[in-house]
């Protein structure tokens, strides 16, 4: 077993601005989000991003010619005009690192490229922070102020998502995934929460909780992501060969800025998934009596002592639930169960999970450099002591928001990170590299390199296709159905042979990447 698998993290960012239109009204968040995405493409160096007039290729299933792709090509021709109009509905770009940066609902969203390990997921998630920051700085240079927040709630009822994606073999029954993951996901904020001031969807009760999202969960299993949000999302959109793969879409997690927290979030889930794939009988047999309520009970108790009831009458804390899952994973990994390899990445994740879980049981405050909700709570408690402030004091609420500001001069998490108080797993150079270069070992490499080398000839792209213009002006699609194909190893020589998409396309058809 290994915790390695194809995965990625999508983050919708909170956005505010003091900009107003000609009538003095605040600009809409849709327009502001469009500004951010367009500013990144405009401000980045050549080859760093597709022009925002190019399209996202939605027609996953239709080969070669694509009506939408063709329309997008027309749109591209009018790019300068569109930029003037700043129509935010088309603000979409694909980056040289293989990520997508676009407007989703009323938020800028960074969807990381496909990576194959939790550490890489951390690195490309941090790269997303830099992309957003670069966009805000470009706007600031034009006198357009925009602030971006890597959080998931406004404290007044609105929530926006951080979604994790995990590639899972189609052979694993979905019902099994749903049943086995619910208790784990209910408890995961203990090691993976970002912390939140206020209890309830509109912060109607004062207090502090572990998770940004717990109070917005309303169902156990469902298709929705914007209302009646479920613990397990059933969207079946694999973005990969459908009969081989499903994409588990996890919508309950928090946006995180502490490296170890991000690592634990995706690493622990990937480990439990692997257990489910290789030895389903070893997954802890626990069914919660009321999972949605349990998620809130666990989130609302920073002492970690609150218990939730199982169907067979046991009362377990979040730590107990995570302990059971970690023990099962350790047993399989350390015990060398069939199909499990204790590689470096697996050692890192399981080791960190064990250390953090043991430390949380003894003294949660000792995890302030690793677990984000603990880090936030430590800072807020220190402030409350000094100022005599209650949990509903506006200064405490302001700090909760300010924690997530992506401007390193203002963001409290970033300030603590810079002061060495949030442990780092990836340094600035590695993050900068992740902004510029795609992961080498997935199809994101081909996507990102095509953007970098042939950007002006790319009409559209998606997770599993790239739509290119050939020399006769025809639009042709290259399909990328396998997430671990079209890697650097497989396509670097091919791309090096061609300086124009026309000749590249000739070879691609025969090679069928």
């Amino acid at each position: 077993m290994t915790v390695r698998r194809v995965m990625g993290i999508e983050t919708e960012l909170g956005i505010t601005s003091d900009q107003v239109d000609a009538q003095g009204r605040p600009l809409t968040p849709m327009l502001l989000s469009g500004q951010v995405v367009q500013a990144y493409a405009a401000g980045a160096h050549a080859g760093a991003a597709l022009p925002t007039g190019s399209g996202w290729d939605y027609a996953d299933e239709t080969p070669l010619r694509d009506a939408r792709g063709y329309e997008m090509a027309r749109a591209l021709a009018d790019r300068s005009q569109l930029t003037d109009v700043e129509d935010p509905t088309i603000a979409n770009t694909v980056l040289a690192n293989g990520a997508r940066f676009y407007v989703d609902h009323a938020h800028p969203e960074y969807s990381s490229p496909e990576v194959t390990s939790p550490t890489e997921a951390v690195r490309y998630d941090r790269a997303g922070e830099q992309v957003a920051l670069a966009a805000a700085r470009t706007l600031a240079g034009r006198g357009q102020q925009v602030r971006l927040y890597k959080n998931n709630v406004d404290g007044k009822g609105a929530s926006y998502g951080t979604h994790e994606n995990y590639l899972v073999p189609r052979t694993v029954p979905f019902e099994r995934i749903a049943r086995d993951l619910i208790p784990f996901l209910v408890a995961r904020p203990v090691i993976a929460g970002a912390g939140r001031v206020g209890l309830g969807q509109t912060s109607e009760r004062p207090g502090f909780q572990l998770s940004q999202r717990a109070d917005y969960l309303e169902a156990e299993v469902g298709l929705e992501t914007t209302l009646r949000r479920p613990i397990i999302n059933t969207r079946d959109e694999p973005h990969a060969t459908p009969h081989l793969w499903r994409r588990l879409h996890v919508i309950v997690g928090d946006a995180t800025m502490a490296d170890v927290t991000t690592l634990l979030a995706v690493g622990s889930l990937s480990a439990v998934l692997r257990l489910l794939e290789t030895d389903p009988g070893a997954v802890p047999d626990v069914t919660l009596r009321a999972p949605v309520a349990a998620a809130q009970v666990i989130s609302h108790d920073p002492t970690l002592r609150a218990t939730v009831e199982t169907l067979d009458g046991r009362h377990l804390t979040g730590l107990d639930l995570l302990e059971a899952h970690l023990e099962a994973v350790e047993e399989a990994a350390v015990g060398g169960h069939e199909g499990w390899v204790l590689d470096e990445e697996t050692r890192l994740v399981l080791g960190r999970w064990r250390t953090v879980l043991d430390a949380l049981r003894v003294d949660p405050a000792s995890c302030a450099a690793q677990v984000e909700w603990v880090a936030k709570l430590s800072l807020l408690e220190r402030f409350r002591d000094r100022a005599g402030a209650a949990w509903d004091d506006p200064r405490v609420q302001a700090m909760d928001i300010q924690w997530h500001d992506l401007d390193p001069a203002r963001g409290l998490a970033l300030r603590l990170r810079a002061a060495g108080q949030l442990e780092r797993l990836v340094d600035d150079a590695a993050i900068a590299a992740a902004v510029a270069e795609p992961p080498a070992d997935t199809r994101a490499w081909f996507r990102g390199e095509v953007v970098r080398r042939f950007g002006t000839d790319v009409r559209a792209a998606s997770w599993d296709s790239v739509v290119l213009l050939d020399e006769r002006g025809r639009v042709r699609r290259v399909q990328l159905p396998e997430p671990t194909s079209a890697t650097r190893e497989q396509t670097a020589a091919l791309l090096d042979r061609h300086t124009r998409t026309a000749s590249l396309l000739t070879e691609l058809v025969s090679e069928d990447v």
Partner: protein
Amino acid sequence: MSEQQKFTSRRDDAAPEPEPAVPPAAPQAQHAERDAALDSLLDEIDGVLETNAQEFVHNFVQKGGQ
């Protein structure tokens, strides 16, 4: 192992350990260093929070997303 034990007992055998980049400081020293860092950050933001917090929180309104 019974179900009950499974959720209450702890493992004895070795789990993989992380290799910390720096040797961990003694807990006391760690706490003191952390408090100093928190205080230094709080000293810097105190004035700003005092004047703007209410309006800032009031104006932080987002549209729901996914």
